[in-house]
Each structure stands twice: as structure tokens, then as C-alpha cells.
């Protein structure tokens, strides 16, 4: 096993890991603030992909890519993902604020089904694999005999920038301090005059927006979308969050990248049918050997 055989898989794993990381950060922040494993999170990603598909389809002539369009549609999709997440929180989770976490989790499974079947029942979307309206160019660069496109590089860079910005907001602004305070002790935060519902909404918005960004980038990367695309990536992002230490932004990012590489290398060595087995094997191993994840759950970094 040399770098020449494994190297390309590691790099490909970074692309995959960038998507995982973006989704995992939102997953993890929501867990941090509500202790809720939001099984619907992957479907925010899926629904956002369909939104970007429709808008981009409407504004694109032919298949030639117009980067200006991709950028503004990307931003609109992030907003849509954020609004969807906030709406779900407002309509489903907030009325259950005093309910047991288990009830919330079951409600989250329900929301997941509602979103998937909602998309399924929209005639323009449906159950088929839909080709994404634009195809990125194949121009790029060669590294150790493997060709990478500028788009792939751009995806990883944008993902990292978004995660770093999120990390900065959470750990180095007053708003982020308020999020961490609400995560630590909601009643005490209320007694500080903090509108905790608004902070929770904000966390959902950020999580949904990051999922929206991942949706646009993954759709560009894979070239097709489907109403079930959020299911397994949601579970993988959850795995990534647990792997890194659920509840903190840095952990989710590290966990995402690591899981991407693990899956990609595993696929390269044993074949694609092993991909999910690697992911969930990692989940089981983490829970078994180090339940607090790689970066631990230091309360300080929750949210």
C-alpha cells in the first residue's frame, strides 16, 4: 500500500469530508443547544438541493455554467435551508420544549419523513434522479498523476471558510457566547435577559444554511439529486459529529473530514459496497472506545 494507491483516495475523501463536515456542524450545534439528535437535518440538505435545482434550472440556458448564477443561487439556497430549519424548529420542536428528548427525536424522524415525502409529491421533483442543471468544467490541475478540477478545490475551500466563520462566530462573538450560554443552562440564560428562543432559532438557521451550502456544492459535484439523498448523508454527518465530539464546531469539522477520508480509502481498498459499513463501523467503534469523541465534549465548546 503506497501513497500512489491511497493518495488519490485520501484527496477524494477530503471532498466527501467537506460535505460531511458542513452538515455535521449544523447537526452538532443543534445537538449542543437542545440535546436533540435532529434526524431531519439531512433532509434540510436534501430539500435545499431541490430548491437550488429549480432556481438554477429556471435561470440557466443550456448546460453552460454561469458562475455568477451559481453564486447567487448558492446564497439563496443557504437562506432557504436556514428558513426551513427555523420553520421546523418553530412549528415542531418549540411546542415540545418541555417534552422529553426522546419525544423530540421521534418527532424529528417524523419531520424527516414529511420532508422526503413532501418533495416526492411535488410533480416537478418526484422520485427520479434529476440531473443537476449545470455541469462544472473539467479544467483543473494534476497532482501525482490524478486530475482534479478547480471546482473540487473551490468546494473544499468554501466549505472550510464557512466552517471557520461559524467557529469564529460561536467562539469569539457575544452572539456566540450567548449560544454557548443557552447550551449550558437555558434558564440561567433567560435570567440574563437573553431571548433563548431567538438564540435557538439562530442556531437552527446557521445549521440549515450550512446544509444548504453543502447541498449546492454536492449537487454540482455529483451532478444529480434525489429525494432520498439526505438520508444516508444525514446519518454520516451524525457519525462525523460523534466521531469528532458532538456539540462543538471544531469536532464536527474534524470528524467530517476524517470520516470522508476513512470512507474514501475504505472504498478504494475494498470497493464501494463497503463505504457505509466503514462509516457506521466508525460510529460503533467511537461509541465503544471513546464515547466523547476525538475532541471530547468539553462543555466549554458545546454549540
Amino acid at each position, binding site marked *: 500500500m503506497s501513497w500512489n494507491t491511497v493518495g488519490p483516495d485520501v484527496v477524494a475523501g477530503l471532498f466527501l469530508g467537506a460535505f460531511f463536515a458542513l452538515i455535521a456542524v449544523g447537526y452538532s450545534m443543534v445537538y449542543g443547544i437542545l440535546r436533540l439528535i435532529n434526524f431531519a437535518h439531512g433532509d434540510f440538505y436534501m430539500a435545499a438541493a431541490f430548491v437550488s435545482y429549480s432556481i438554477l434550472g429556471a435561470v440557466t440556458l443550456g448546460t453552460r455554467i454561469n458562475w455568477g448564477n451559481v453564486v447567487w443561487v448558492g446564497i439563496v439556497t443557504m437562506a432557504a435551508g436556514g428558513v426551513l430549519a427555523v420553520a421546523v424548529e418553530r412549528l415542531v420542536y418549540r411546542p415540545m420544549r418541555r417534552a422529553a428528548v426522546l419525544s423530540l427525536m421521534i418527532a424529528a424522524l417524523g419531520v424527516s419523513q414529511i420532508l422526503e415525502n413532501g418533495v416526492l409529491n411535488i410533480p416537478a421533483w418526484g422520485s427520479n434522479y434529476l440531473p443537476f442543471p449545470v455541469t462544472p468544467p473539467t479544467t483543473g490541475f494534476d497532482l501525482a498523476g490524478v486530475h482534479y478540477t478547480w471546482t473540487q478545490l473551490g468546494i473544499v475551500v468554501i466549505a472550510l471558510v464557512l466552517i471557520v466563520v461559524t467557529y469564529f462566530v460561536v467562539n469569539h462573538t*457575544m452572539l456566540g*457566547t*450567548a449560544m*454557548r*450560554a443557552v447550551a*449550558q*443552562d437555558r*434558564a*440561567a*440564560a*433567560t*435570567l*440574563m*435577559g*437573553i*431571548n*433563548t428562543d431567538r438564540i435557538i432559532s439562530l442556531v437552527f438557521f446557521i445549521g440549515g444554511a450550512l446544509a444548504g451550502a453543502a447541498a449546492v456544492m454536492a449537487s454540482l459535484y455529483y451532478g444529480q439529486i434525489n429525494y432520498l439523498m439526505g438520508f444516508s448523508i444525514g446519518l454520516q454527518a451524525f457519525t462525523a459529529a460523534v466521531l469528532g465530539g458532538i456539540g462543538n464546531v471544531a469536532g464536527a469539522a474534524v470528524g467530517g473530514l476524517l470520516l470522508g477520508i476513512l470512507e474514501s480509502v475504505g472504498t478504494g481498498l475494498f470497493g464501494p459496497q463497503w463505504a457505509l459499513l466503514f462509516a457506521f463501523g466508525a460510529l460503533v467503534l467511537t461509541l465503544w472506545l471513546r464515547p466523547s469523541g476525538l475532541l471530547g465534549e*468539553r*462543555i*466549554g*465548546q*458545546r454549540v
Partner: protein
Amino acid sequence: MTVLSLANVAVYYGPVRGVVDVDLCVDEHEIVALLGANGAGKSTVLKAVSGLVRPRAGTISFRGEDLKRVPAATRVRRGLVQVPEGRRIFPALTVRENLELAAFGFGIARAARRARLESVVERFPLIRAHLQKLAGMLSGGEQQVLAIARGMMAEPKLLMVDEPSLGLAPQMVESVYDLLVQIAAEGTPVLLVEQNVTLAFEITSRAYVLQQGRVVLAGHSAALADDPRVVAAYLGAGGAAAR
């Protein structure tokens, strides 16, 4: 002028009675004690005033305004500030973050927040050396002072303090009490919840004694200090009958 008044307030937790028929008031420049044994309903009264629990009956008004429809966070912004039982500082935030956060909900500019922090730290010198530490690293007494300092960041018009002496060394209790006296002297009335009657009577002008969710005694602290019914209320024998 009456700052806080409760009339006929009743709070239930599901079918379980928290408190009933609570009448209570706090006037300007006063320190008022709310006394009672464990489980008598003292903290429940504070929670109702802060808006953390919703009373089933009765009225709570603050500076002449009915609080019924005022959300908890808004009450704090209007100056109704509680230092909760067990301090409830944010252990994983720094001392500075704890303090700044307490003025964050007010929508004031960063510079004004810093200025407030500066004036609060001025008054609580114990805090200054620890600003960059995680609050969870402070000793119990330091945490209690931080909790009160944090309350002062909100520029309270009434400060409610729940069991500040709990778990503190006697010397520390004394300095925490001195702080409360000083705060009241500077014009902020204080509603003090205490289990330790002897301590509470020393610094308060009036007191209410709760037993099993009802106010069984109320009056001037000096008079109550010698009243055997206070002890009876604590022991749970005949307190209600004594009224």
C-alpha cells in the same frame, strides 16, 4: 413607592401545589427577606416573579405594571433581576464572558457594555483578577460574588437573591451580605431568599415566612427575630395554626 407587589399568587407544578395566596411587597431602599424551610416555596415565588413559571392565579406587578404578559427575558431588561439559587454561573465561559453576557440582551452598544463591566468590576475587586478565568474554576464564594456582580451588570431596579449563603464559609457569607447591604444603600432594593434566619434578620428590614407554600408570618425583622413562631414554622409544627 412599591417596587414589587404580589397579590394572591398561586403556582402549581401540574397537580402539585407550589405556593398559594402569596401577598408580598418590596418597597424602595428595602432589603426584604423571604424565609422558610426547604421546600416551603421560596424559590417558586422568585421563579414566578422572574417569569420562569406561570402563576395559576394572582397578580404580580413591578413598578406599577402587571407582569402577566411580559416574557421572562423582557422582565430582566426592565430591571427585574434574579441571582438564582446555586449561582448558575456559566462554568465553561470566562468570568468576563459571564459578566458581558448579562448586559448583552439589552441591545446596548459594545462600548456601553464595556463601561458597565468596568464599573461593576470596580465595585467587586475580587472579580478583577479572575476576568480571563473560566468561571467554573472559581471557588464557591467567588462564584457567588460573580453571580451577584453578573446581576448588577443588568443595572437592576430590584435584585432578587436566592440563598446566597448556601455552601459558603462564614467569612465569605459575611462579605456577600455586606455586598447586599451596600447595593441596597445605593438605591437598589433587594429581595433575599434565605434558609438561615439569624443571618437574614441581621440585614433585612422586613421578612415573610413561608411554610408549605403559604405566607404564615410577615412583619418587621426586628420583631420577628424574637418570635417563637418563626422557629415553629421551620420545624413545621403549628406554624400555620399560629397565624
